Each structure stands twice: as structure tokens, then as C-alpha cells.
């Protein structure tokens, strides 16, 4: 099995500058009762975007052009909290292909890499500069591991295997299964 390869994202950027945006904000827990992968666009940042009565409010997330704005620049420690993989699922379904931040939470980063969501951790100065360029066009280059936006050029470092998975569409489970002999050998040793 292969995933969709993703080598670059070229789009306008959307900014959410708050630090510590947790996965309960990205998708509230009450939407986690599904048993299928499901379509989660409507649940993404649900409680920021909808009022008590379920009506969409004036939050800029609601008015953004989902086809034209596919890069999210977010505050430090993005994706902290719960391990729910529904968070990257929801972000992808809501039209984001890349998240740029100064630091992303470990489990979120791992989940994102398995779902074609590019997470770029950039230095603080570039991060601050990018947060100031909402609406401008940026390019996230997964092969070169760079973000460019106007005069701003920043580099980021993906875990090498996660990068390979993204740009070649490699499926990690297939990779592990290919090493079944090593697993069996470990089990024999550990017994």
C-alpha cells in the first residue's frame, strides 16, 4: 500500500499565533465517537468556528478560501495534549497540508507524518516573521526542507524516514512488515 506523495505545498498562509493550541481545540473530544476514518472538516476547530446554536460565526477560519489557503502558521507547542490522530485527520480534511510552528508536540508530529500533513518546525525569528505575513503566498518544500515567503527563508528538519514517507508516499506499516524476520528473531531472543 502507498500513501499520496507530497513534495511541496504552495499556497497562502493562515495564522493562529496563540501558543499551546491543543488537540482538544483542533477537534473536541465529543467528535471522537466515530468508528470509521470519516470526514472531519466540520469538526476542525469546531468550538472556535461555531456558536452555541451550531451557526458558523465570523471567525476567519470560516471565511478562508480552503483551496487557496493550505498552510497554517501556528504558535509554539502546536498540537499539545491528547494523542488523538483525529487532529491531523481534521486539519487535512479542513484543507491544511502544512503546519509551520516553532515547536510541535511529539505525538502530533508523529501522527501528522503518517497522514500527509507536513509539520515544519522553524527557528523563532522566522516563526515570528511568518506569523506577520498572513494571507501571503508561501512555499513549503519537503525535498529541500525549506519554507519561503517573500523575503523570509527558513529551514526545517523532518525526521529522515518521515520525510521519505512524505515524498515517496512510503507506507510505514509496509516497511515494518518487510522486517518480520527481525521481529521473529527478537522474539526468539527475548523468550
Amino acid at each position, binding site marked *: 500500500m502507498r500513501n499520496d506523495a507530497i513534495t511541496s505545498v504552495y499556497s497562502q498562509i493562515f495564522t493562529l499565533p496563540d501558543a499551546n493550541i491543543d488537540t482538544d481545540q483542533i477537534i473536541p473530544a465529543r467528535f471522537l465517537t466515530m468508528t470509521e476514518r470519516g470526514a472531519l472538516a466540520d469538526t476542525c476547530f469546531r468550538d472556535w468556528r461555531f456558536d*452555541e446554536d451550531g451557526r458558523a460565526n465570523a471567525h476567519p477560519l470560516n471565511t478562508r478560501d480552503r483551496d487557496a489557503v493550505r498552510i497554517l502558521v501556528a504558535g509554539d507547542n502546536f498540537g499539545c495534549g491528547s*494523542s488523538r490522530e483525529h487532529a491531523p485527520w481534521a486539519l487535512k480534511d479542513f484543507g491544511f497540508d502544512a503546519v509551520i510552528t516553532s*515547536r510541535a508536540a511529539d505525538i502530533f508530529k508523529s501522527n501528522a507524518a503518517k497522514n500527509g500533513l507536513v509539520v515544519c518546525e522553524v527557528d523563532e525569528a522566522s516563526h515570528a516573521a511568518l506569523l506577520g505575513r498572513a494571507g501571503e503566498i508561501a512555499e513549503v518544500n519537503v525535498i529541500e526542507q525549506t519554507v519561503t515567503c517573500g523575503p523570509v527563508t527558513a529551514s526545517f528538519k523532518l525526521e*529522515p524516514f518521515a520525510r521519505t514517507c512524505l515524498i515517496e508516499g512510503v507506507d510505514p506499516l509496509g516497511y*515494518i512488515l518487510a522486517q518480520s524476520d527481525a521481529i521473529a528473531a527478537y522474539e526468539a531472543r527475548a523468550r
Partner: protein
Amino acid sequence: MAKTLFEKIWDSHQAVAETQAAPGMLYVDLHLIHEVTSPQAFKAIEDRGLTVRRPELTFATLDHATPTTPRAPGAKPIYATKAAESQVRRLEDNCRRHGIRLAGWDSEDRGIVHVIGPELGLTQPGQTIVCGDSHTATHGAFGALAFGIGTTEVGHVLATQCLLQRRPKTMRVTVDGRLRAGVSAKDLILAIIAELGAGGASGHVIEYAGTAIEELSMEERMTVCNMSIEAGARAGLIAPDETTIDYLRGRKYAPKGAAFEAARKRWAQLVSDPGALFDAEVRIEGSRVAPMVTWGDSPDMAAPVDAVAPMPSGPESARALAYMGFKPGEALMGETIDTVFIGSCTNARLSDLREAAAVMAGRHVKAGVRMLVVPGSEAVKRAAEAEGLDAIFTTAGAQWREPGCSMCIAMNGDSGKPGERVVSTSNRNFAGRQGKGVRTVLASPATAAASAVAGAIADPRRILEASHAQ
């Protein structure tokens, strides 16, 4: 070469070593699953025609989406939604089909996944333990390497018993001295998180050490390790000692007889060697820790209960204070509350319920305040009832409920209303975590109980001192 405890466990579980190009393959000794993060994982492996490689190394429970409303013995649980019910059914089917043990509705072992693992002796020193749940570090209290994973990885473990992992960094948090009377493990971990920051330990596995840690009971150690993720840590662990061994002896799935003695010898090796190096070192003086409460919407926004709400240091803290309805410079104590929740994988074990009951005994929940007490497991519930704790809570006007995650994650129908202020013994005060617009104050069981009595944020030491004086 001197090794840390983490390195010993890590190195001994490498099925395939890490290279520059690819992570290593970490073998998993115990895989815990629940209804919320597993259905898509089973589907993913079944769609590829794969089976569960080692079903005997996986253990399942029902906890997150399950109702906690009181019901007669044998009565059917009434779910908040059809979706929750079908999610539970799906896990029951998946376990049956794949031969996985399930502590289901008919089991006396059912409970919150991080309460039952230790309680049943499934959790043991030196193991690698994973679960599709970020509070898996709880099991690190036994000197196990335990961490949360996503649903795709749950599928990887089901199919291969392995995970692709890069070696994380190490951090030692040493707590010197000893905790003062009236200060609990929850207060300690809130103080540690406030010190480290919500992302301060990201990329690291924390080892908790020092005299104040050594003095903690197993249940207290679980409370500390449980919230490691709230500082961003991958995992948190504590070297096993006599306290650990005493706890494990005689547990349902712990080794027995000669096997236990042999295991004990192995477990004694599970310490960080003298001179082992950590990537980061943090020291905290235990005697300086006070009962803590949170004043914002991130777990690192915590202060001593008798402090004032801080002056905002930036836009996040200003927004957080406004969300919580706290005014900078004004006392946190005395701020009114609407609901008290005692429960969760952080604080729903027998000692937690005793701590809360000691405050509630002979007192009453303030009129207009709702209090839920939700034991962490069927076993905790039975033990609490055997010593009359349920009666103390119900006499005081609190609700005594069935085991589950309940208001910690608020996806089972137990939640607060917009604007409500909730003092909660759980682990996250994120905006909306306990229901849209709900304002959560994290605290220890004693502080939560004292606040229920006062109808406002309260210092448990004052109530306990009054009890002792009588």
C-alpha cells in the same frame, strides 16, 4: 558505560537498531487499547488482510465513551449517544474476532485503562507499554517505558508488535527534601509542569528521582508520571524499589512464587547507573511545594492555592485569565465554583478517594454546587464501598458514580455547561475540555473536596487543620 534507566529499557527492546535513514523498531511488551482510538486501527489492518501478531500482549478495556450514571447491578448501561454505544460494540467485536482479552461490562476488572493496568499487575518494571492515549506515561511509575501513540501506530503494534521510534532525549527531574503535610503528588506534578512549561520537556523522557519521589506511594507515583505529557514529555518514569515490589506482589497478572523472585532480581537492575548522563537536569525543592491550582487554560498556568491570579505576561495569559474569569492580583481562594469532579486516570484511585473523603466526612457540599465522584475502576469502587467512602460522599451530597473517564474528557455525556467553573482532579484545563465554554481549575482531591464544601476555591490545609484541632 553508565546508562540511565530509560536507556536500559530502550536498548533491550530494539528489534532493529536505529540508523541515520530510519528509526529503530521498538518491541512492545504490553499494548493497552480502548474503544476510542482503536476502531480505525483494526479496520486498517483487516483491510490489508493482516491479523494481530501477539493477541496475548494486548489488553482492552471500556472507559472513555462509557456512561458513569449509577445503575443497578446487572442493569444495562445507557449511553449518551448511539455513536458511543456502537464504538463500544465495535471494540467488543474486534476483541472477540482477534482473541484479545477485554475487561468489558461483565468484568470485575473494567476501569480506566491507566488504573487497571497497574491494578491487575499487567504493568511491570522494565516493560515497554503503549496505548492510544497520551496519559500512558502513568505506567512509568513502575519503571516501565510507557507512552501514548496515535491510531495508525495502534495498527502497527497490533500487526507487528513493533513501533518505528527514534531515541528521545532524557531529562531528570530531581525532587529533593520532602513534601509538607497537606501537599499531595498532584500538587507536586502541577508545580513541576509550571516550572518546565507546557512544552518544556518535549522530545524528552523524564526520570523522576530524589528523596521526595522515593517517599511516594505507588498511587502517588502514578499521579506524577501521569501528567508528564502536560509538560510535553514523551514519557515519565521512576526507578522501581521495594514500594514497587510490595505493590505488585500477588496482583492478578504479576509473576507468582519463584517467577516473582526471579523477576525481582531483574527489576533491581532497573536504576540509572551512578554517573549516567541526562540531556537535561532539573531540581526542585520538595518542601517548597504548596497545594496548587491552575488559573488558566494550560496545565502550566498553575500557582499555589493561596496565591493571587498573576499579572498577564503576554496575550495568552491575558486571554486565559479572561476565559477563567480571574482578575490579575486578586486571590484565587474564594473564587466561586459550580461543579467539582473527582476522578480520571490522574486521581481516581483508592488513596485519592480517601484523601477527598477525609475532607468531606461530616461536611456537606455547598448548596448549588454539583459534585461527581467517579472511581477509576470497578476494583476501586468495590474497595471504596467496602470502607464506606461512598456513604461519606453521598451523605455529603455528592454523586457516587460508575467507573470511567467521565468529565476528564467529557465525551460520555458527563460535562459542564458553558461558563461553569469546575474544580477538577483531572489532568487538562484546556478551554472546552470539560464541555464547551467550561472553565476548569485543576487541583488535588483534597483541594477539590475542600472547594466543594466551601463552594469556592479553598485550601484543604485549613479544613484538615480544623479537623485535627477538634
